[in-house]
């Protein structure tokens, strides 16, 4: 039903972004109903997620954070098992023990998700180190984090170690202008995290995070360079969190003008319009895609809802290996 993880055709990227949007809106609906409280959606940031994840190879590893649905779905995660996890069901990727905030899926190469802001940054060098010490392991490590995570000291510790030890890490900072209920402008003297990253002496770029093609191109270029040199690189996707920090959130603290301006640059519409102009998309085709993703999400919701909760005996398992 979904495109395979590594089909980079524009239509495939579009369908994946639409799948993520539909998934997140479904989650928001569930949360509005009182379930899955505290879920953080990535609405508005789909291009930043899809553009990078689709630039990665099968053998690469991904570390992500609390706002991970886009990364997971772009990587080919089953929306049913994701929703099941969000609802704390036994069939979720983490048996319901994680819930929405730290979903890992080792089978997809999405490892060690932490909802501690900066957690993924502290773990990524070790994942990359293991790869450099494993003969024949060519994979790189992509770690996703926000502008807020860059304010944690461990961001700098992580970049410095990756540079000094030459670790193959693609640092992907999703700068969505928000750090929970605080605007990025209140927490940093400059507009871009890139300035901090560059001081560590690694390649550091920014890209329009709402333009999936631009993100995909930049991420592909940097990923290739990391494979070639074995050294880390930093990519900042400039985007915006158009829903609240978590569900539900009335966004009363958000400047309506800023929000409207970014909504006008919706990444899905940007790509759809471009494809329309290019003649590769028309209303019928778009409707077909929308129908497919909605059907996929309906199916996922049905699966998640029908899934059982874990046995109470699960409370004390998976603590020690």
């Amino acid at each position, binding site marked *: 039903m979904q495109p395979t993880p590594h089909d980079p055709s524009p239509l495939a990227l579009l369908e994946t972004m639409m799948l993520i949007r539909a998934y997140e809106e479904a989650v928001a609906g569930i949360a509005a109903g009182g379930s899955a409280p505290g879920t953080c959606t990535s609405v508005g940031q789909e291009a930043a997620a899809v553009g990078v994840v689709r630039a990665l190879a099968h053998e690469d590893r991904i570390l992500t954070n609390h706002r991970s649905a886009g990364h997971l779905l772009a990587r080919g995660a089953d929306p049913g098992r994701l929703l099941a996890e969000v609802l*704390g069901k036994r069939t979720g990727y983490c048996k319901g023990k994680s819930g929405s905030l730290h979903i890992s899926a080792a089978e997809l190469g999405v490892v060690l998700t932490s909802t501690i802001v900066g957690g993924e940054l502290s773990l990524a060098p070790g994942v990359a180190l293991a790869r450099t010490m494993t003969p024949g392991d060519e994979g790189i490590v992509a770690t996703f984090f926000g502008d807020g995570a860059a304010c*944690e000291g461990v961001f700098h510790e992580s970049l410095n170690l990756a540079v000094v030890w030459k670790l193959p890490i693609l640092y992907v900072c999703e700068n969505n202008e928000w750090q929970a209920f605080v605007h990025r402008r209140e927490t940093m003297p400059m507009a871009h995290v890139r300035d901090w990253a560059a001081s560590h002496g690694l390649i550091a770029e920014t890209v329009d995070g709402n333009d999936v093609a631009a993100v995909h191109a930049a991420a592909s270029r940097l990923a290739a360079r990391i494979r070639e040199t074995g050294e880390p690189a930093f990519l900042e996707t400039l985007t915006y969190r158009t829903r609240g920090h978590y569900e539900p959130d009335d966004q009363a603290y958000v400047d309506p003008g800023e929000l409207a301006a970014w909504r006008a640059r919706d990444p899905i519409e940007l790509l759809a319009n471009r494809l329309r102009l290019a003649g590769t998309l028309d209303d019928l085709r778009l409707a077909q895609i929308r129908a497919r993703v909605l059907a996929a999400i309906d199916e996922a919701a049905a699966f998640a809802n029908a899934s059982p*909760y874990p046995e109470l005996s699960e409370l004390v398992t998976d603590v020690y290996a």
Partner: protein
Amino acid sequence: MSVITVNEAITQALAEEMRRDPSVLMFGEGVATKRANLVAEFGAARVRNTPLAEGIIAGTAAGAAASGLRPIVDLLFAPFLCFAMDEIVNSAGKLRYLSGGQFKFPMVVLAMTGAGWTVGAQHNHNLEAWFVHSPGLKVVMPSSAADFKGLLKAAIRDDNPVLFFMDLALGYQAGEVPEGEHLVPLGHAATLREGRDVTLVSYAKTALHCVAAADALAQQGISAEVLDLRSLKPLDEAAILASVRKTGRVLVVHEASRLCGVGAEVAALVAEHAFAALKAPVRRLTGPDVPAPSSWPLEQAFVPQAEGIAAAGRALVEQREYA
């Protein structure tokens, strides 16, 4: 008396103390956003948002406290304290001593914890015992709106670093709070129920579960006393010992894990200093030694509930072994 929620009690305590003492200020991630009322009354200099960095938030509080201010910092959820341990434990807790008493650290660290929001172990970890174990700190964890207000006000006035833990399940719980100035001194437990047969010692939300258990036990003809510790450091050892000397039996209950928890301290204290009065083994009923799960039924199973407490209390009184 007026009836307000725990969250309202916290807001009242903050506003009253900031009104009373211009050296009180508050900062943290989203503090200014979420406490617009305080910004409006006290201004942006005294109510601040911060960058997302718990270490520097706590360190700045310690530095400010040693320099004449009385900072309150909101570190949001207890597991995030893991990024501020050096500043809290090595600096605020030790630099008075290591300097031979040259500095004091009047500061309050706020953090939420506890089951109820199904957000898992990186938001929900009851680690109050860490700070009880650490020198130079005080630790508070109330269960009622009145105590949240009175203890927070007392914590803000205390000249030492106070960790103020908020059991998140209690935020919207309403309770009677005395009108006007209401202070609850640190270091004093509260007897929520008088009883003769067994003492249930607890704190935070499980103290309320103990009250429910006491009601259930009363139905069965067992008279349980319920002690709410409220302050975990200083610990009201006298109140604990007095109650156990009266009832001869003690069951310590908390959501935090068992090993080296506050329950271990209370049990050891009793076995050491009320041994002669004990008619039965000391018992603990705690959360399991596992990270807090997200899944709702697992999260509920994580927390000692009234039924389990009542059953354990009854077994204790009946001198039965109880798993």
